[in-house]
């Protein structure tokens, strides 16, 4: 009997490799991101932070200021609503192309495939094109979109609306396409067998099945849009963010606290409302 009779524990090469990779990344990031903890906790950094915290109190609740920030607050809501509406306008048509069972696969296309050897491949082209566009809209952060649109159309709420519209259009389009791909194909086949045209099949088969999910997800995106709308003002795209940036730059820290509190109320209010509406759909 050998000294070690138990089975050897299998060395996990992949795990070891990942761990090394992680440690390496950590060291590189630490240097590249110029992390200097001492700067924060000692000396000037700490003093500045204390100045900031002391300057926060008391928060500015004067009626004048509250009246002054009412408009940007409402504007933030308006930007989020219009942005989401635009996102639906952009995402919906693209999702029709990006849903494989609508463009080239599945029961709607079974009887026609093979007619021409290239017909199926040809119909997949708009599908991949739509997916690529959606991916691009989604991968560029809405903040960067806002930066670009501020330059293209000028300051104000409009670039905010456009930024949310494009960025969230990409997200909504992808999710809508997934919802369409998830519908029960059996009613679709039944409607097709009555000789219905594609648009009619879509109206009677796809839309009623998908509608609750489409609406619910769009409302959820509206919740996210209010957060986005609140910070897009930092690059001049209107709303309460512009005000926060201004107060920060002017070192009016009492105003900053008030604004952040208003922002919290706004976000949680919209979240409650959207959650309520989504419960009604279910």
């Amino acid at each position: 009997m050998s000294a070690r009779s138990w089975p050897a524990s299998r060395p996990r090469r992949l795990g070891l490799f990942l761990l090394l990779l992680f440690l390496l990344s950590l060291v590189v990031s630490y240097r590249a991101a110029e992390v200097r903890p001492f700067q924060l906790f000692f000396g000037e950094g700490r003093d500045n932070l204390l100045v900031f915290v002391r300057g926060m109190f008391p928060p500015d609740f004067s009626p004048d200021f509250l009246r002054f920030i009412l408009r940007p607050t409402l504007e933030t809501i308006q930007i989020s609503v219009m942005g989401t509406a635009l996102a639906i306008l952009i995402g919906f048509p693209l999702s029709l192309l990006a849903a494989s069972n609508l463009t080239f696969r599945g029961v709607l296309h079974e009887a026609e495939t093979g007619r021409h050897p290239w017909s199926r491949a040809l119909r997949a082209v708009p599908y991949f094109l739509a997916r690529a566009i959606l991916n691009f809209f989604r991968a560029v952060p809405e903040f960067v979109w806002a930066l670009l649109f501020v330059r293209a159309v000028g300051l104000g709420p409009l670039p905010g609306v456009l930024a949310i519209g494009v960025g969230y259009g990409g997200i909504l389009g992808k999710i809508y396409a997934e919802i369409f791909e998830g519908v029960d194909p059996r009613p679709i086949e039944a409607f097709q067998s009555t000789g219905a045209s594609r648009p009619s099949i879509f109206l009677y088969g796809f839309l009623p099945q998908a509608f609750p999910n489409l609406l619910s997800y769009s409302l959820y995106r509206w919740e996210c849009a209010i957060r986005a709308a609140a910070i897009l003002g930092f690059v001049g795209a209107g709303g309460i963010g512009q005000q926060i940036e201004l107060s920060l730059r002017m070192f009016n820290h009492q105003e900053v606290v008030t604004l952040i509190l208003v922002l919290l109320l706004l976000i949680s209010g919209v979240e409650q409302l959207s959650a309520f509406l989504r419960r009604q759909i279910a």
Partner: protein
Amino acid sequence: MASTIPQRSRPAVLAWAMPGFLLALFIWSYLGVGGNLGELFGPEGRAGMADYVKRLYPPNLEGEFLLEVGKAALETLSISFMGTFIAALLGGALVFLASSNLMFSGILFEREGGWGLARGFRMALFGLSRAILSILRSIPEIVLAMIFIFAVGLGPFPGVLALGLHTGGVLGKLFSEVVEDIDSRPLESLQATGASRLKILLYGVLPQVLPQFLSYTLYRWEVNIRTAAILGIVGAGGIGLKLHIAVSLFLEDQLLTLIAVLFAMVTAVDYLSHAVRKRLI
């Protein structure tokens, strides 16, 4: 005969209330901020946009600039990585204080009745850590970034701190949901062996929650790579700073390059994170 056709049931008030409300919200918003949306797609607006897009091309691909962009991209990547790492540490440290089944309720505390001082202390700790997490979570990263720029000056470090604190709040919340959701039976059997709370944590809780913790952290990394890119716009380094400069100084030829690099970076992180997360579950 016709009279026997059943009448359409009158739709409930609520069935009309929701579309009505959403429509009203839309119209109000349109009147507020959508007024010149139409103008944008009119002939003048279209010409302006087309002109803008035309100026983006050709992208700037000079070696020197590419090197700079590469450095900025690495910086953004580093900010997101360090920020997420700090956030995971912060969330991971606070989560055990912020989980009710480790602090005062559930199987570990079945035999502890009443309101002893120790129990009260633990409940206070629980409430405090929850409050901290919720405050961290609710301040937007960009506001935190500006505060830290005020404290430690321009550069990537304030970006790291902003991401770390905000994401720490988010992860702490997500983690605590995982911890409160674990199977309590292993804890019960460990407790029955006479193990201390710390040992129960090590042998009963951590093995159950770590894969989920890692998965959530990776998911937030995907979010943070996007956020790290934008924090530069307010002065927290990285590719966002380059974007801001390019936009402000009308260096349109740089924009396309920068956006392409950003797109590639975001897609790569998404892909990597998805691949690892799929293996975890």
